[in-house]
């Protein structure tokens, strides 16, 4: 099991509780084995889909076949450490506006798994401190 979790908040939803990203062990093994494509492969897909949403054609949207296949055909980036894999995962699975822009306080933090409280009501009251 991964030693890390990622706590993050969405500045677009200030009333929502902090969210917790939980990495998959299978995916982490792939990352450590060097089986992941460059992160840009996922960003291209996300950009195309966001554009379709903005243009109101998400229901009929289909990824470009070549860009979609790049998930498997692009050259692999090589083995990552667990820490590097978590950073990759942040950029893959957390909405980009949360980690790519600067706010007046941090919007995400990588923490040790044991630091995440198991009590839901306590967790829901969390805010990420500077």
């Amino acid at each position, binding site marked *: 099991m991964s030693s890390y979790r990622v706590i993050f908040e969405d500045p677009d939803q200030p009333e929502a509780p902090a*969210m917790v*990203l939980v990495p998959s062990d299978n995916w982490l093994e792939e990352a450590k084995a060097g089986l992941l494509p460059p992160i840009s492969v996922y960003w291209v897909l996300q950009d195309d889909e966001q554009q379709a949403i903005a243009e109101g054609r998400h229901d009929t949207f289909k990824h470009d076949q070549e860009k979609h296949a790049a998930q498997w055909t692009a050259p692999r980036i090589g083995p990552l450490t667990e820490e590097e894999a978590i950073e990759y995962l942040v950029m893959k699975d957390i909405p980009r506006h949360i980690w790519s822009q600067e706010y007046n306080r941090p919007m995400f933090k990588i923490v040790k798994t044991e630091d995440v409280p198991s009590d839901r009501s306590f967790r829901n009251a969390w805010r990420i401190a500077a």
Partner: protein
Amino acid sequence: MSTLKVDTLQTTGGAGLYPARAWVNLNGTGTVAIRADGNVSSITDVSTGQYDTNFSSAMSDINYSCAIGTYLADVGVPTPYQFNLSTTSVRLYSYREDTNVYADTSTFCANIIR
């Protein structure tokens, strides 16, 4: 280890076979955790009874099928439902009809077929 790469799967009689593109079994109580998965890079504990499943490899479109089921000890079966958020993730919900609130669930399973 060998990998089988094909475009379609069929029985010897010619009937189509449609394996899951992704699946997950998660524990949504306590410190949320993935028990087991396939083609899932992570889950996001969004809020009480709400979990995003993020795919390792994106789907080609959002018209995939998501079969889901939940179980919560002592309560039984909260109503599960899902929203096909995008080609990269699906949001899973667990809702208690008796109390009209979202509820964390000890077992939430989802199979994605496309």
